[in-house]
């Protein structure tokens, strides 16, 4: 009698899948165990009988079909299957995401989180872009042009059939670059130029400049004494400053000044940088003003004195600090005035020297000396006065005056940031409400799932019942 049998090892023994040691052990057992030997015989019989099931072979067209499929559709078919798999994941995910987004947007609409605030103007965003709600006229940049007029010329700009006039300052050569804007007021369009902060003067019988169909400025009637610069292709309200100074002869005394108006993102940084530019160009600050308006936008005005040889460099550097709204450059020729002063000084000096010489003579009597001295004093005052005037002119000529006006945009980054925060707050509130909505819907979903489970269970019971009927039948 054996304490154990090798029934579980018999399959492996039959298939010759045992190790030598196991095989030896089974063989020894089989020699003395009739039960296991009979079991092995049965298994061997079954294994032999299994060979009786001869599966048919494939037909002759299989290979051709496979090769054809490989050649024409094989790889593509695989890719399609992969696409189907991907779609099987993406489509349900997309549908789910769509439902969530729809529910979220619906909750947004219901809560009127954003829409309501925008409509009611709480965050002032709608108001900023709504001309009807503004105290000031709504400005729309219409055109951009860059023209230069020589002294005593006056030009009329015609734009969209509306004659407008830009007056050139007398005895000056004006370089005017700016954005022409129109404000709607009453029946007529009233023009003005925001870069100058005042309305342009209407003047008749002036040089007219029309904007041609090609987009360039050309002379329509009369004629300017200086060339008209071509228009740079318009890009909204961006203005290109190209100041061109007239050549001055040696000894000519010309006082130059410029005013640049910028829209900047950061007023304080602009103020600092402008100071740095002034120092870098060996200039000095004449005056400065920095402030914040009611809406919290930073603005300021800096007047700086820059050596005349660094005038253009200063304009270029300042223009790079922000978006140029306007740039006005003026030149005043004071050569004649300077020459007059010099002549008067020379004459005064002659009188002064002669008087002084007479006074210093020994034969001069005391009363006469007193008279000469009383005459000398006003002459001396006159000489000093003329010297001061000449020195003032020299200073004005050697140092140009550059005024920088800057302000942060009407819809500044800060205001936008505050608006964004307001919107974020609205979105957050709406999001929380959306989550609450879903949370409230969870019990409904649970009940629905339970009902679905019951229905499926009943269906499977019916299936089982039908199966049994089929079996019996």
């Amino acid at each position, binding site marked *: 009698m054996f304490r154990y049998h090798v029934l579980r090892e018999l399959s492996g023994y039959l298939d010759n899948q045992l190790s030598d040691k196991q095989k030896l052990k089974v063989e020894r057992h089989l020699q003395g165990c009739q039960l296991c030997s009979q079991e092995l015989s049965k298994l061997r019989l*079954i*294994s032999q009988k299994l060979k009786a099931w001869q599966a*048919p072979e*494939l037909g002759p067209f299989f290979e051709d079909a496979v090769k054809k499929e490989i050649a024409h559709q094989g790889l593509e078919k695989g890719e399609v299957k992969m696409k189907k798999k991907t779609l099987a994941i993406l489509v349900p995910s997309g549908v789910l995401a769509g439902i969530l987004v729809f529910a979220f947007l619906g909750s947004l609409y219901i809560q009127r989180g954003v829409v309501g605030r925008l409509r009611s103007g709480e965050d002032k965003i709608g108001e900023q872009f709504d001309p009807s709600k503004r105290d000031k006229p709504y400005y729309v940049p219409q055109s951009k042009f860059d023209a230069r007029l020589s002294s005593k010329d006056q030009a009329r700009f015609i734009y969209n059939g509306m004659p407008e006039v830009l007056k050139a300052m007398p005895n000056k050569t004006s370089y005017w670059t700016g954005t022409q804007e129109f404000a709607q007021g009453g029946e007529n369009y009233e023009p003005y130029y925001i870069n100058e902060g005042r309305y342009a003067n209407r003047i008749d019988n002036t040089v007219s400049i029309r904007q041609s169909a090609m987009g360039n400025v050309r002379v329509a009637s009369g004629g300017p004494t200086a060339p008209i610069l071509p228009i740079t292709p318009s890009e909204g309200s961006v203005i290109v400053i190209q100041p061109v100074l007239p050549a001055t002869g040696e000894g000519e005394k010309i006082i130059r000044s410029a005013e640049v108006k910028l829209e900047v993102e950061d007023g304080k940084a602009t103020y600092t940088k402008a100071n740095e530019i002034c120092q870098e160009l060996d200039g000095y600050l004449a005056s400065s003003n920095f402030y914040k308006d009611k809406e919290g936008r930073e603005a300021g005005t800096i007047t700086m004195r820059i050596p005349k040889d660094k005038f253009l460099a200063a304009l270029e550097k300042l223009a790079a600090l922000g978006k140029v709204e306007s740039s006005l450059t003026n030149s005043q020729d004071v050569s004649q005035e300077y020459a007059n002063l010099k002549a008067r000084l020379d004459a005064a000096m002659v009188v002064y020297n002669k008087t002084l010489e007479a006074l210093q003579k020994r034969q001069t009597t005391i009363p006469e000396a007193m008279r000469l001295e009383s005459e000398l004093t006003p002459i001396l005052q006159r000489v000093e006065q003329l010297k001061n005037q000449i020195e003032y002119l020299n200073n004005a000529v050697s140092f140009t005056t550059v005024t920088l006006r800057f302000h942060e945009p009407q819809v500044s980054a800060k205001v936008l940031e505050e608006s964004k925060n307001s919107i974020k707050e609205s979105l957050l509130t709406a999001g929380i409400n959306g989550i609450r909505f879903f949370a409230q819907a969870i019990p409904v979903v649970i009940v629905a799932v339970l009902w679905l489970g019951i229905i499926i269970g009943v269906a499977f019971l019916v299936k089982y019942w*039908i199966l049994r009927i089929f079996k019996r039948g």
Partner: protein
Amino acid sequence: MQGLRDEEVMLNYQKGEVEAMDELLRRYKNPVYQFALRLSGNAAEAEDIAQEVFLRLHQYKDEYRPSGKFSTWIFSITHNLAVSRLRKKKWWAVWPRRDDGSEALVEFQSPDPSPEEIASENELSGILKKCIQGLPFLQREALILREYQNLDYQDIAKILKKSLGTVKTLIHRARQNLKTRLLPYLEEVKGGV
């Protein structure tokens, strides 16, 4: 090409020799088809699986590494496809179908053919077919790979992604089940003769 081992032929196909596919088809089209047929019991489905196997072989030829037997690799593909199709059928086969004797997979048939059904089969192969298809899927698969494809247990374990011990158990149980179902009939036939 004919003197080369399966792995070498596959490597040649990997390198771009189109003729290698002819050789692989010649060698494996019937084993793959017969394996699929015995597994599914459906000739059309078996042919579809066989075709899909060779398309996959073509599609993933660059991923083939001759570290194991080629036969193990190709039967693994067949196994995966068969399991995949079975899962799909299980999912869709919510409602029962009356057994037509050949078309349906065993999972949707009565697991135990009645003695009357067995007796009604005139040929032994038909009875064997019914008995084998009455086995659970993994037992059936392991037994088919052993008895008809003559693979050793190690290879079967790789194909089924099971341990060696599991494969031994599966084959043992499959034979025990067959013994229970088939022996009465065999003894009856023997006694009748």
